[in-house]
């Protein structure tokens, strides 16, 4: 896209009152009469049609504020656009999040991309198609509803045709969306619902540049446009900067969370070959060199040269559970139905249990990476950042804050893929690091990648949590009372809510701000804490711990992982007390039809009740509707528990998933499989170790994750709901998998492990 187009898009965005050039009311068949109060998905915040779809030069450019994280969102959005517009998928150019060009859709998180962006693009495309059909009808002197479209060619059935490319004008497509044009009914969709190969996979398998790690020349991609697309005078103006070679930076983080840099003897480092700069700013320490290997070697020297004084501010892992109950707390009742207290007193039988989830890592395979440069002339300084952040606009805010004490006229963030993040990892922080290091070398482009220990020790972990629950059964074995308490630190400390790590560590660093809990219905620590089951008397209390001492933030499924683990484990404990089959017991307490269907489907597919198991094997089920308002997922796990060691192996996991209308069944399947395997790894192995000063796990030997020999066989039954809203898929299987494994272990050895991870030692202890 040329600058001219960008300018005109902006102009139209500014004159947002501009009416759509064609009447939309004439084709009664495909329109609805009433204007919706709120526009669907992200159209609400970004209503201009041409902020989503631009048709030009026989190509269709689709803009999304969401990003590819390996979840396949690019492919699904291409499918939606192509189907709704009736063009070939090859004709779609999809632009993902850039502050310069795409809508602001916040973060790519919470399994919201299909709901937010998918829905917006669906409605925008339907409306664009209708506008084009009206224009074609004028041109062909036909009725719009008599026309058909094939890859942008519009025909009237009598041999007359025109094309989108002939009739599309910027003016016609520049208006605000009305969302009055209904998208295609499910049975008319040809691309949506069919498996489509991921568009990003071939490049990754063939070793083509695919990641921000592969960016070598910022002049190639500056401002989100390839240099050859720029007008000649702009290329000339940038010539001087173009010649600047990419430098490599590394950071040296303190040896503990709260530390002061006492001294750095950097003389030897500065003499090293290729070293351009050692940057010391308060507790922020880094080095810039000409090559990556030089930067890594210089960093090693710098680690040795730095003297830190570290404060003991953490409880240490052995005191974690006590500490969680003693820490400062903000208590709220999340749910209060009936009278749980009285019901528990009157119950025929009551049970209580405490479940625990430790700190766990995102543990990306590739450490976080970013490239930053500062382009300056006499008047202006602009920061360009290439990042695998989940939110380019929020990161932009955080970077503006990072440079608030010096002149920075514009900050542009462009997303390029990185290693999978599964939530808020080091992606944003490393972008801040790269910006600070670039600033120290007169704005020359600097690529920074964290070392393995930086990622392991400094990424914000998923919060440790305690879940305490009491349940009561009546004489018939029905749950009549449920009292649930959850203790948790925040589940999002994303920028700009909290400052970037480099911003905190600089001299006169940016202070941490107060954390607020993520409110229900989605919730953070409360996510999935309210049972979907029909218990007559339910109380859920959230003990929000606003001041984390270990760095925490959003990890895939947030509190939903631990809450579903606890809730669904305890449902099994009550089922056992009631002498009921776990699947039947759940169905007896659940009215939600879609919930019942995934439980039944998973149980059937897993051969629940009929499957022959060895003595050392067990089977368990876990179920949740993610956030109590998104996708439904049930997982049945089959485990083997080693008699001698207590070691648990997950042999097989069978899931059923209902994510609403399915756009790409391959994509949904892959998200569920991947979610199960990652959750199995959390559930069996993962537990961040830390002492009073900071985290202790430096690498994969300290913090092992599941590897090929231990990966279960996985299967998933997809429940498709054509015409129903997209519910997202990425995080739905995490919680049910944990519960299914815990319940299967209990089934195998008749002993319950209530603390994650379910290690051999804990199984042995439970059996004693």
């Amino acid at each position: 896209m040329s600058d001219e187009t960008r300018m005109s898009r902006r102009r139209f965005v500014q004159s947002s009152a501009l009416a759509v050039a064609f009447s939309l009311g004439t084709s009664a068949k495909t329109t609805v009469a009433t204007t919706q109060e709120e526009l669907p998905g992200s159209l609400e915040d970004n209503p201009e049609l041409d902020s989503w779809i631009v048709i030009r030069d026989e190509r269709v450019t689709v803009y999304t504020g969401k990003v590819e994280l390996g979840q396949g969102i690019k492919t699904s959005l291409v499918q939606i656009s192509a189907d709704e517009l009736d063009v070939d998928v090859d004709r779609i150019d999809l632009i993902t999040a850039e502050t310069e060009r795409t809508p602001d859709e916040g973060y790519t998180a919470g399994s919201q991309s299909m709901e937010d962006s998918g829905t917006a693009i669906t409605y925008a495309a339907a409306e664009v198609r209708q506008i084009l059909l009206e224009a074609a009808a004028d041109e062909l002197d036909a009725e719009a509803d008599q026309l058909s479209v094939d890859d942008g060619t519009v025909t009237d059935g009598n041999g007359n045709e025109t094309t989108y490319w002939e009739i599309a004008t910027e003016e016609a497509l520049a208006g605000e969306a009305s969302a009055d044009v209904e998208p295609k009914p499910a049975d008319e969709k040809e691309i949506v619902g069919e498996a489509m190969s991921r568009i990003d996979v071939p490049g990754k398998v063939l070793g083509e540049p695919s990641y921000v790690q592969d960016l070598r020349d910022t002049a190639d991609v500056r401002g989100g446009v390839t240099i050859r697309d720029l007008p000649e005078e702009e290329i000339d103006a940038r010539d001087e900067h173009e010649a600047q070679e990419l430098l490599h930076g590394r950071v040296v983080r303190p040896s503990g969370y709260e530390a002061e840099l006492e001294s750095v003897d950097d003389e030897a480092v500065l003499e090293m070959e290729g070293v351009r700069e050692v940057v010391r700013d308060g507790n922020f320490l880094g080095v810039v060199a000409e090559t990556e290997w030089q930067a890594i070697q210089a960093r090693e020297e710098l680690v040795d040269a730095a003297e830190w004084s570290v404060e003991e501010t953490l409880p240490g892992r052995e005191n974690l559970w006590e500490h969680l109950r003693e820490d400062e707390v903000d208590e709220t009742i999340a749910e209060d139905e009936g009278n749980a207290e009285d019901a528990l007193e009157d119950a025929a039988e009551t049970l209580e249990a405490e479940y625990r989830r430790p700190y766990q890592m995102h543990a990306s395979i590739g450490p976080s990476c970013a490239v930053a440069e500062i382009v300056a002339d006499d008047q202006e300084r602009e920061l360009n950042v290439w990042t695998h952040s989940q939110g380019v606009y929020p990161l932009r805010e955080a970077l503006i804050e990072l440079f608030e004490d010096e002149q920075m006229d514009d900050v542009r963030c462009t997303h390029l893929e990185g290693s999978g993040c599964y939530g808020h990892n080091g992606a944003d922080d490393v972008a801040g690091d790269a910006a600070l290091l670039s600033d120290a070398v007169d704005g020359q482009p600097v690529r920074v990648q964290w070392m393995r220990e930086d990622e392991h020790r400094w990424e914000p972990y998923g919060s440790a949590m305690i879940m305490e629950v009491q349940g009561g059964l009546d004489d018939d074995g029905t749950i009549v009372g449920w009292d649930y308490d959850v203790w948790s630190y925040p589940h999002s400390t994303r920028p700009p809510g909290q400052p970037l790590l480099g911003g905190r560590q600089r001299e006169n660093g940016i202070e941490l701000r107060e954390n607020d809990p993520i409110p229900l219905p989605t919730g953070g620590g409360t996510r999935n804490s309210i049972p979907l089951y029909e218990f007559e008397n339910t109380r859920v209390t959230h003990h929000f711990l606003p001041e984390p001492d270990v760095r925490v933030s959003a990890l895939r499924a947030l509190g939903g992982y631990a809450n579903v683990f606890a809730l669904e484990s305890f449902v099994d404990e009550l089922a056992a007390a009631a002498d009921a089959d776990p699947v039947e017991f759940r169905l007896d307490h659940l009215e939600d039809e879609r919930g019942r269907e995934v439980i039944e489907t998973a149980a059937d597919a897993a051969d629940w009740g009929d499957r022959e198991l060895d003595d050392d094997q067990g089977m368990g089920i876990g179920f949740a509707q993610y956030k109590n308002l998104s996708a439904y997922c049930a997982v049945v796990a089959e485990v083997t528990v080693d008699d001698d060691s207590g070691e648990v192996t997950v042999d097989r996991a069978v899931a059923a998933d209902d994510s609403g209308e399915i756009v790409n069944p391959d994509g949904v399947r892959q998200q569920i499989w991947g979610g199960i395997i990652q959750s199995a790894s959390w559930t069996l192995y993962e537990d961040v170790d830390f002492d009073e000063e900071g985290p202790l796990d430096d690498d994969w030997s300290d913090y092992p994750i599941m590897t090929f020999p231990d990966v279960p066989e996985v299967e998933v039954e997809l429940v498709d709901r054509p015409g129903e809203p997209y519910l997202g898929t990425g995080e739905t299987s995490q919680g049910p998998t944990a519960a299914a494994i815990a319940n299967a272990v209990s089934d195998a050895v008749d002993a319950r492990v209530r603390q994650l991870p379910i290690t051999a030692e804990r199984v042995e202890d439970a059996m004693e």
Partner: protein
Amino acid sequence: MSTNENDPFSILKDGDRGFERLTTQEEGDETEEVEETIEFELNGEDVTFDGDPEKPLLYVLRNDAELNGPKFGCGLAQCGSCDVIVDGETAISCVVTVDDVEGSEVTTTRGLGTRDDPHPVQEAFIDTQAAQCGYCIHGMVMEAVVLLEDNPDPSDDEIRDALADNLCRCGTHPEIMAAVRQAAEEMN
């Protein structure tokens, strides 16, 4: 999609910059450092590296040869993201030095195949959608190629064992297993 002008990487994809940097002198290498000229074969081409012989192969491949396949994952020989093939065996390029490969044949995905003519293992990985984020995939492909050369018809357990040291965090293991099985069938 492959020729998408809006793809910020498309300009890089247009031209293969090849190994020009490898054959030119490293910058700023006047004194002190031990310099050596090391010759090896990279993806079928004879290349010459002038510089620090202790430099890990990974950085020679990524930064001097400008190859994107091998990735920095840990620098500790723990994750397999940087795996390459050296003389028919997988080598962990973050700990192997460039000196270690003197006179050897080094292969990355780029040397296996291209979009128009992919290696059967690459084709199988694309066909089975054996990547989510894909950061580990280069190493997986390397391991699979070596496995299938040694053992053209591996059992599932043998595939699992061959890939045991390669970490994947997205949970793409089932698709990767399927890719190796499919490649085995294709190659037999």
